[in-house]
């Protein structure tokens, strides 16, 4: 492999700076002791983090988002595993349609999904219901899980399962003892990416949350359009921190490049 030249490296450094600058400034400003958005030039302070934890709306939204992401990621995996098996393992009528349907939330703008679900929820009287919010989030994170699962299932050698059958294992045993352990990296990777996507989702959620179910991104959006103070930076820094942890976990269990490269 040839090395990159100096121009390439300068270009690359600028890109890296560009990508990291907004995140870096958010994290720095979060530690400001001042009352206004400013860089912490006169020492560091945790007062804005404290403010966040004392702000009941942010705290409630944080828990909303956390539960929402945990539930929707888990249920998405539960739904996606059998569906992905069906799509990869069988030839049947409607297979192409189902495949397209399960991946469709990737190409339908979340804005459109948001207004569409708002309409549905209004008609069935589900506006503001946390359960329906979870269902909506399952729908938008399932494609990410499906993609990883389909890759994981098609990537492995069927004869391993046949070997287990030939040794007398029942279908349930083969699934539990052989198939599931072998697609486990795909399942965990899919769960994590679903969790992150659900936790971050703004555009659809803004239409279908009610005051009691407002998620953290929606709360932050509302807050940012109304007032700007360093508390916003502190919440943002917390989110950057959570995401960083999740990213490192993802990298551990699955390899981040594999997930992201399989994501678009």
């Amino acid at each position, binding site marked *: 492999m040839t090395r990159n030249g100096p121009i390439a490296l300068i270009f690359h450094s600028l890109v890296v700076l560009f990508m990291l600058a907004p995140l870096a400034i958010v994290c720095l400003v979060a530690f400001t002791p001042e009352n206004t958005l*400013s860089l912490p030039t006169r020492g560091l302070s945790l007062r804005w983090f404290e403010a966040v934890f004392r702000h009941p709306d942010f705290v409630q939204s944080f828990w909303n988002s956390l539960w929402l992401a945990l539930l929707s990621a888990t249920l998405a995996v539960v739904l*996606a595993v059998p569906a992905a098996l069906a799509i990869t393992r069988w030839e049947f009528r409607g297979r192409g349609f189902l495949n397209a349907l399960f991946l469709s939330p990737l190409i339908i703008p979340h804005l459109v999904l948001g207004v569409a679900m708002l309409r549905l929820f209004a008609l069935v009287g589900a506006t503001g219901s946390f359960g329906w919010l979870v269902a909506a989030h399952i729908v938008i994170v399932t494609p990410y899980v499906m993609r990883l699962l389909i890759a994981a299932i098609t990537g492995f050698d069927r004869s391993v399962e046949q070997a287990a059958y030939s040794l007398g294992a029942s279908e349930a045993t083969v699934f539990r003892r052989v198939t599931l352990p072998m697609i486990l990296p795909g399942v965990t990777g899919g769960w994590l990416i679903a969790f992150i996507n659900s936790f971050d989702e703004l555009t659809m959620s803004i239409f279908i949350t009610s005051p009691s179910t407002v998620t953290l*991104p929606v709360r932050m959006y509302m807050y*940012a359009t109304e007032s700007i103070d360093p508390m916003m930076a502190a919440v943002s820094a917390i989110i950057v921190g959570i995401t960083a942890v999740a990213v490192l976990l993802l990298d551990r269990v699955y390899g981040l490049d594999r997930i992201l490269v399989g994501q678009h």
Partner: protein
Amino acid sequence: MSAAPARLPTPLILSAPAALLFGALILTPLVLTALLSFNEFEHATGRTHGFTVAHYAAVLSDSYYLEIFLRTFRVAALATAICVVIGVPEAYILSRMRNPWRSVFLLVVLAPLLVSVVVRAFGWSMLLGPEGPVNAVLMALGFGRMRLLYNEGTVIVALVHVMLPFMVIPVWTSLQKLDPAVEQAALSFGASRATAIVRVVAPQILPGILSGSLIVFGLSASAFAIPGLLGGRRLKMVATIVYDQYLSDLNWPMGAAVAVLLLAANLIVMLTYHRVVEGHYRRRLG
């Protein structure tokens, strides 16, 4: 090797739960919204009923809406172009790095994708704000304080930040598939580095660039948080007027019509792409 003998419609049983959910929460609401967009809207009572194409007529003839659609596509197109100009070389540079740098920088470039877009928009508003570091640098260089927020430029810059990973990923993927020996072969025939890149590398990653452009364009055209937070009150884009129609004006049929048009535009672009790219390049490049 055949799958298990299909005595029962096992695959249908397996996919039924997901299919039902998607039917209920994707297909039904989309159909309902399409229907809603043809309802009349009574401003006085907020009731919706009857059948009309007035909302579509309004969007397609009213210069207010046309301007917003044009602005949206202009912004999305510019963001896409800039993503190509930055993302393609960056993906190429990344692919030529050695590990561990390669993994580290791939992470640095791609991971922001996973940070909430609200956080990133907020970061840009601080960077470009009147007291922000960018203005500080400009002042130090003697340009004076500039008004950097609440214009198309800001929105584009932030969109590029949000979308760049979506460009890098497919280009990176096609670069990974590319056999490095092919570029070396071109060099061995006496081609210059530039010629090798233009004649040998570029054609092979073109599908990746197209696929990335498409994703970036689609996501930019329907982006909501960035114009919402960085465009201010006057700089409306399609997503923000849908939001206004739904949540401020409560004119749902009008909002639905705009949303349906946005979805239609998105699908047309996607399907055209599939026709053109899948047909043409997949055959040639396997």
